[in-house]
């Protein structure tokens, strides 16, 4: 019924949504959307590295994003600049460096649009394997650090005082962020990955009253966005990334209606 590439894209997208759901909740809770953007922008540099040295894109992006995250942590300690300025500095300079390097790589034909906005045609079996195995590892690690990460998100001092080691959990979470960006870059594109993390989680926040529910709704929202987005992408020949994000935006708007209704009910 569907072409093979479409089935592959669907498998890849479902794998990504399962991971971005819970991770996205933490991005919203910990106010890390700009941090996610910065890592995503630096991913372009990772992609060019992959082409230059003939590496796997996901692994190369993961390495570069992790390095950028480490540099950010060091800069936060050593300079007096505010956090958002440092994030902007790293985001745009790594994006610019990536684009300049692409200019030098004249022997390779780059699909810039595909990199920025995602390309379902580009997803192959190898990518699906990376998404599902990488995604499984990310989810297992997240499950392991859930308690300290969540407790320190609610209140750092309580977590530290009661022996949960929140600093370690935070460092591990940073690496998970780099990993999720690495596995989803081909599908969603580097400009829109953060949207995939934030919008389903924001939608879930509107309709949930406990952290567990928010995670579950966020996963469901992500899955629906991927399926709806990919069908639209196929139907209207649009880029896969924007189509998925638009679908999640529609779900978010629907969740706002739910808020209005519940407010009416209360009054």
């Amino acid at each position, binding site marked *: 019924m569907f072409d093979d590439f479409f089935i592959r894209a669907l498998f890849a997208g479902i794998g990504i949504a399962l991971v971005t759901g819970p991770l996205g909740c933490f991005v919203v809770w910990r106010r890390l959307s700009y941090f996610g953007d910065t890592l995503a922008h630096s991913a372009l540099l990772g992609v060019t590295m992959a082409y230059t040295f003939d590496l796997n894109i996901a692994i190369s992006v993961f390495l570069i994003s992790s390095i950028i995250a480490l540099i950010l942590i060091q800069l936060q300690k050593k300079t007096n600049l505010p956090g958002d300025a440092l994030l902007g500095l790293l985001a745009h300079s790594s994006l610019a460096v990536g684009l300049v390097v692409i200019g030098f790589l004249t022997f390779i034909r780059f699909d810039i649009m595909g990199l920025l906005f995602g390309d379902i045609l580009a997803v192959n079996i190898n990518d699906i394997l990376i998404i599902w195995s990488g995604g499984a590892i990310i989810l297992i690690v997240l499950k392991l650090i859930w308690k300290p990460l969540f*407790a320190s998100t609610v209140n750092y001092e*309580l977590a530290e005082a009661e022996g949960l080691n929140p600093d370690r959990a935070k460092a591990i979470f940073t690496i998970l962020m780099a990993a999720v960006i690495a596995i989803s870059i081909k599908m969603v594109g580097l400009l829109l990955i953060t949207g995939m993390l934030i919008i389903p989680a924001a939608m879930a926040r509107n309709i949930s009253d406990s952290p567990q529910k928010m995670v579950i709704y966020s996963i469901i929202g992500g899955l629906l966005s991927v399926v709806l987005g990919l069908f639209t992408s196929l139907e209207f020949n649009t880029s896969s990334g924007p189509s998925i994000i638009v679908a999640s935006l529609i779900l978010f708007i629907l969740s706002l209606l739910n808020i209005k209704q519940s407010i009416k009910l209360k009054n």
Partner: protein
Amino acid sequence: MSLENKILVKLNNAGIKQNNKWLVEGVTLTVEKGKIITLIGPNGSGKSTTAKIALGIYKNIEGSVEKYTNKVGYVPQKISIDWTLPLRVYDFMLLTENIKDEAIDEALTLTGVIHLKNKNLGNLSGGEFQRVLIARAISKKPELLVLDEPVQGVDYTGEIALYELIKKISDSLNCGILLISHDLHTVMTATDHVVCLNGHVCCSGTPIDVAKNNAYKTLFGEQASQILSIYEHKHDHEHLDEGNIKKN
């Protein structure tokens, strides 16, 4: 050896500097099993800071802290919770440890807020939230309980009941309690050991020792010593020879 086992936390000449200014310095104290130690002192005297040093929240301290337990319950003085999180009282009770439902119910009942169990944490009043904080700290049956102004915002009758509860918990769990309180009356009646802080340790000892100390009188004024005299009259009839007070 048995004495060693009783010690939960030991501060040796501990202090912390921020921007070249001492927040608190030279604090030496021990919290033992089954004992209540209270920190008193004016605003900015380093009470909360000392509690945080004892809890190991600060990393770059002077002196040393030896902590002999990991079962800690903490009620901070200020807690800012981000309401971007959907969090019910029930979720909050499970924050740092997976506790059985019965233990959660028991703790919430003891502090009188069991009816709020499924409410959103953001919708509680200050006093209700304070009771939830205390319930959370005691529900995990800690060996060390650090209570920083635990009854702030609680109504007067509730305040007395909660202090009685704290005393009861210290007896039943045999845990050590590090208490910070502004309420000198409570301090003097419920505590085993008082440490009076003002950037450093002014004086310390049993409540009676501290109340007789001149440094304490300078800090808190004559009124503060009178609070103690009420306490002494109530509980220590032997030393009195005035008949009109004996009827207490």
